[in-house]
């Protein structure tokens, strides 16, 4: 889309006349207004769907005894199918409310999970069962492609992380094999990799950005957890192999020229493959030359800072405000965490909080200003 500067440039060059420039300016304002309104509708309908979905799950959890099990199942399964039909109708048959239709399809996917948990509750299937979450994923995953649904890609990623967590709790043997931080880091890389694969084909690229976003968040959360001085870092021999395979797979995808050209976030993708390979190296070294907790803390802080810097660079290059905002958010969180770690013992409490608060306020003002500038720059004048 063109912007105000471009219109002025064409006007100065004589490519367009004043009337054409005015028409373009008016159209541009109209386009931006509509674009903003679409975003608002998307946000409101998605939040509404999520709230109703959470309500349905809480309804199941309350195990209300006033109505019988058969009626509850019929009510919830009936609602799931009806909401799904309403979503399909508004998005494809009526076509007047496509965004509402998408939100209703997301809601039906949440109701599907609630119905599943209701049946599991009636038959007293063991609590915190990972298989139920897996069935939920299997049930809703095809909708990502069937309805080109981006929110369901997000829901599936969240459910995948939940499934991994429950599986980790169920199989106590996993604790000896891999730490929870590493399992989520590998899961995040896997989801990010899924995102890259999706962004390569025209028919699946709608889900690519969501998978990448969800993968990136898990990677950042687990790496952030690594930056704290905690207990001994233990690694089994299989872990560096998994990291190395995921890093090499990512790199192989990005090295192939036709695939590289299709990837719209090459720099961010390279950052993630670098992290995977770096983790392979760190975990491999840990097996043969384990270091002290302090060394790991320093090392992971450097790795985390490095990743944030790479992401900021990628965000600027791709003019992607989402990546820049994500990197800035984690950067602030990192400063906050380290401030507490290093100065808690050194400064008197009152001074600690006042000075820390002041520093954070200044940082937040600087970063917010920078973020706004970038947003204006990336969107061509739209704020």
């Amino acid at each position, binding site marked *: 889309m063109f912007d105000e500067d471009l219109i002025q440039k064409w006007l100065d060059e004589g490519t367009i006349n004043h009337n054409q420039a005015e028409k373009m300016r008016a159209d541009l304002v109209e386009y931006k207004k509509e674009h903003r309104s679409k975003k608002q509708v998307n946000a409101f309908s998605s939040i509404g769907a999520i709230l109703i979905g959470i309500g349905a799950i809480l309804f199941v959890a309350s195990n209300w*005894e006033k109505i019988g099990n058969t009626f509850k199942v019929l009510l919830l*399964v009936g609602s799931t199918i009806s909401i799904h039909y309403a979503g399909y109708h508004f998005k494809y048959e009526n076509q007047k409310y496509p965004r509402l239709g998408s939100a209703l399809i997301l809601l039906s996917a949440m109701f599907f999970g609630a119905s*599943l948990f209701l049946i599991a*509750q009636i038959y007293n299937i063991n*609590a915190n069962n990972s298989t139920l979450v897996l069935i939920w994923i299997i049930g809703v995953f*095809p*909708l990502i492609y*069937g309805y080109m649904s981006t929110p369901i890609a997000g829901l599936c990623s969240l459910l995948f992380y939940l499934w991994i967590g429950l599986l980790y709790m169920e199989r106590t043997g996993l604790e000896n094999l891999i730490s929870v931080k590493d399992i989520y880091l590998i899961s995040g890389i896997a989801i990010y990799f899924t995102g890259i694969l999706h962004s390569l084909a025209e028919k699946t690229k709608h889900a690519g950005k969501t998978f990448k976003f969800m993968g990136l968040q898990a990677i950042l959360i687990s790496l952030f957890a690594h930056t704290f001085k905690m207990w001994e870092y233990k690694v089994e021999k299989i872990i560096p192999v998994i990291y190395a395979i995921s890093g090499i797979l990512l790199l192989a995808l990005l090295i192939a020229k036709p695939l590289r050209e299709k990837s719209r976030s090459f720099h961010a993708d390279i950052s993630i493959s670098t992290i995977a390979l770096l983790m392979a190296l760190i975990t491999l070294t840990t097996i043969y030359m384990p270091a002290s907790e302090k060394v790991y803390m320093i090392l992971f802080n450097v790795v985390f800072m490095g990743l944030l810097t790479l992401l900021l660079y990628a965000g600027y290059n791709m003019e992607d405000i989402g990546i820049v905002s994500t990197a800035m958010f984690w950067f602030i969180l990192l400063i906050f965490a380290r401030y507490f770690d290093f100065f808690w013992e050194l400064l008197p409490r009152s001074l600690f909080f006042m000075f820390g608060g002041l520093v954070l306020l200044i940082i937040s003002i600087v970063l917010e200003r920078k973020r706004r500038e970038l947003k204006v720059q990336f969107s061509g004048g739209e704020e």
Partner: protein
Amino acid sequence: MNQKKVFYLTVVFWLLIFSGFILYKEYTLRTGTKVILKTEPVDPRDLFRGDYVNLNYEISTLNLEEIEAEDPYLEYNDRIYLALEIENGYGVPKKIYKKPPDNELYIKGTVKEPIYEYREEDDDNLIPEESRLKERRVVEYRRIEYGIESYFVPEGRGLEIESQQWASREGIDVNVVVDKFGNAVIKSLLIDGKEVET
């Protein structure tokens, strides 16, 4: 594929999952044998399904020295089939199998972590000095999961049931139905032999 087909396929797929799930459990409930199992309950909460009573059965911890086993080497996550004998309605462990036994009532379970108990050998003839040095014998138990360790109750009823359990004389029993494939489903909770209404 057009969206109309996607819609119909999704509805059919979801209904198949729901009905398959219900039929699988109903099959056990309708065709299985009723067994009562002794328990010791506590009261936690599930993320999606609310309050439940955590059931720890007597058969959840098997003493490998007391119960005959087809193969005594049980690894973590191994599938086992515990043959049950019914005594006064209660299911009592008879033998542990690695493969489903023929013509026996059995319940399917998964081996979990081992539990070790240190017991001192009792010997009345030992003099005090010797008794201090008496050998400690290790008794190995195996925790087994049968997929019937949770009983879901209406919000807030978990604590109530727990207090009833402490007040009861005979503790909590569970009415379980076991089908011919060893799958078990909880039918009801019994306190002093009476069904708990939920």
